């Protein structure tokens, strides 16, 4: 049994951490968050130059052959740093789909560019009525003269505003929430019939509502097999769930540490408020939650290679934990910072907002608890 990370993994983790603390300053992040820009194009270039955008892709695909451990390490640091560049959307979501089932030509056309930091992409995994069920798809793709015509609406498309390439899951057959009958289409954003309503999200990231009106695409736009995209979609979403859970743990630990530091420095009634036993116990509670969450993250990463139900169960356990413990750690951090915890000026409130957003992404705590239960019933 060995829970240590390799030398290369340590180097990667430390280089991301170093970049975050030396170069990715909160003030700069906030300047962009408060502007109309969605993220720093310069930073994105840097991430590509440093090879971060290549991490989870095979060497055949031009990547660095990294896996869940590398992603976990990077995402934890991205969490601490409140990084708003669209790593999740480009590398985990869009990249995740392409690496799994794109053809050689499609990979050369799109994946290479994504890895090189030269193409912004998005995966439109959500619709207004879906809740957290990614199979609930009413966007249709009808065959017409050898091409496909897409109609429908996608919601909360992460990185949709910047995306030049949008991967659209559409229904080619079956009922609205059938697992079969889903096909993935790679659609350039400037194609006729695509309308975007772009916005920022409460955690300073960005997304779009995308309408498709008679969007005409050729067969070459199809990624993978017709009617058969569900597993690819679900596996990619599971990867993304694992990734944001790691990000959340980075945030939770940061919030916990900042709370301890703050209470040590905040003097009221003539003493640091950290001297109050009631608060000490609460900070121990948040420490325990951070450590328990870290443990579930390690378990998930180690079970990951098993794939299928075992992997999914672990990811759901982790996401449930992030939702519940994360909410508690976040709320406690805000509360113990007093008025400062609800001020825009301090990073604590922004860490709390991102943590809150992560609970919603890819299924909240209740959703994943239910999935854990149903997966347990199967095994």
């Amino acid at each position, binding site marked *: 049994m060995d829970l240590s990370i390799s030398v290369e993994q340590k180097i990667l983790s430390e280089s991301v951490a170093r970049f975050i603390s030396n170069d990715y300053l909160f003030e700069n992040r906030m300047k962009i968050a408060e502007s109309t820009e969605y993220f720093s194009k310069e930073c994105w270039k840097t991430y590509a130059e440093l090879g971060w955008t290549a991490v989870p892709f095979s060497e055949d695909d031009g990547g660095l052959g990294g896996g869940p451990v590398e992603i976990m390490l990077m995402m934890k640091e991205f969490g601490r740093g409140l990084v708003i560049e669209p790593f999740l959307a480009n590398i985990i979501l869009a990249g995740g789909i392409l690496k799994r089932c794109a053809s050689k030509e499609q990979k050369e056309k799109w994946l290479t560019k994504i890895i090189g930091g030269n193409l912004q992409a998005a995966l439109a995994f959500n619709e207004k009525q879906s809740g957290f069920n990614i199979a609930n798809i009413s966007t249709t793709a009808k065959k017409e003269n050898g091409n496909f015509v897409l109609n429908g609406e996608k919601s909360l498309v992460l990185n949709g505003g910047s995306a030049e390439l949008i991967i659209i899951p559409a229904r080619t057959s079956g009922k609205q929430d059938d697992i079969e009958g889903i096909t993935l289409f790679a659609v350039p954003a400037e194609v006729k019939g695509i309308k975007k309503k772009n916005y920022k999200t409460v*955690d300073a990231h960005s997304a779009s509502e995308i309408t498709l009106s008679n969007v005409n695409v050729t067969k070459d736009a199809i990624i993978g097999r017709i009617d058969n995209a569900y597993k690819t979609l679900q596996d990619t979403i599971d990867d993304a769930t694992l990734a944001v859970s790691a990000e959340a743990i980075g945030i939770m630990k940061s919030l916990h540490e900042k709370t301890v530091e703050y209470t040590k420095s905040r003097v009221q009634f003539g003493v640091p408020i950290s001297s109050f036993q009631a608060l000490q116990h609460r900070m121990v509670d948040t420490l325990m939650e951070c450590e328990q969450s870290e443990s579930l993250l390690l378990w998930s990463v180690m079970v990951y290679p098993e794939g299928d139900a075992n992997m999914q169960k672990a990811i759901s356990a982790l996401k449930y934990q992030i939702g519940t413990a994360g909410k508690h750690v976040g709320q406690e951090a805000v509360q113990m910072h007093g008025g400062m915890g609800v001020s825009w000026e301090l990073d604590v409130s922004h860490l709390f907002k991102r943590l809150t957003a992560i609970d919603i992404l890819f299924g909240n705590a*209740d959703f994943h608890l239910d999935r854990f239960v149903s997966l347990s019933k199967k095994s």
Partner: protein
Amino acid sequence: MHISFTSKEIAFQKDVRQFFTEKYPEAIKHKQNNAITLSRDDIVTWQKILFKQGWAGINWPKEHGGTGWTPVHKYIFAIEMANANAPAMVPFGVQMVGPVIYTFGNEEQKKRFLPDILASNVWWCQGYSEPGSGSDLASLRMTADRKGDHYILNGTKTWTTLGQMADWIFCLVRTSTDVARKQEGISFVLADMKTPGITVRPIITIEGEHEVNEIHFEDTKIPITNLIGEEGKGWTYGKVLLRHERTSIAGVARSQYRLRRLRDKTGSSIVNGEPLSKNPNFSRKMAKLEIELKALEYTELRTLAAVAVGKAPGPESSLLKIRGTEIQQHIDELFMEASGYFALPYVPDQYVLDFPDDQRIGSGSETATSLRYFNNRKASIYGGSNEIQKNIIAKHVLGL
């Protein structure tokens, strides 16, 4: 033992309900029901409507224009106001400085300030907290140096709600440091916000809005006639304020209104094929909150019943602020869950009149849910944080 209203009280309820149906302006109602921020004008207009009805001074003695209502009347009014989703009066004038002035001020001050407070002619804000004095308010450092006929004010107040709209401010200031207990050196003064030396700096809160401020006083001269009562007695006067908030502090009626709204929303909007209210996890959470809120409702009634027969509120009333704010925040959480992904878009620009529907993200005010959730984390922090409230209960109720 019964909780039914008398026939007079029922008639009163009808009158109040009718008032809200007829006199609560449609324009303001529309904004309230669609998460659109009220303007200063809206707030003053509405408060003047309440004043015209004679209902601005709910807790004021009749001699100063108060309603003379019994606790049951106040309770009924709170319910009807909550059910109409009408804004409550901004508390700083009518609920905070007004009672201090009519209890401890001299006749000239009462004549000068009270009518304008009641009529909402003057907007008041509160200068209590300082960057170094939050929970430990008595450690405040803003000074008021007596110089002939004036006090010279120097210092900084913070978290001043709606200070940017205020005409006047009431402050707890330090007039003496030569005292045994720090509370004994504190005085209660009033200042015109237009006095030279006063600067208002906006503080943006977590959700991106401008609700609170930092207020700097640099050699600000106020006449000594702006001192309320005696020097060094300000802390006692400030504590008196707290007793006036018993009937509304729990926010029971508003929370019940919100839970009903939540029930409606989750009963009708379909998420992944079915209404969220059919989801067992969610419906249990709603049920638990309903139970907690019912308990709080009766805790408040117990307080009211005691006060109605002339007794002092019992120990159960101390938990009203703690449980009331916790329940409010739990309701915020459930609204978040009910909004799903639509809690994520940050689109405050959408919450204006006549926003084009075809540009709207999400339906109704779903996207405002997270802004409320984030902003309302303040409820367990302000007004004496819940930690301080527990200290008060431990000391004064449990004798620990």
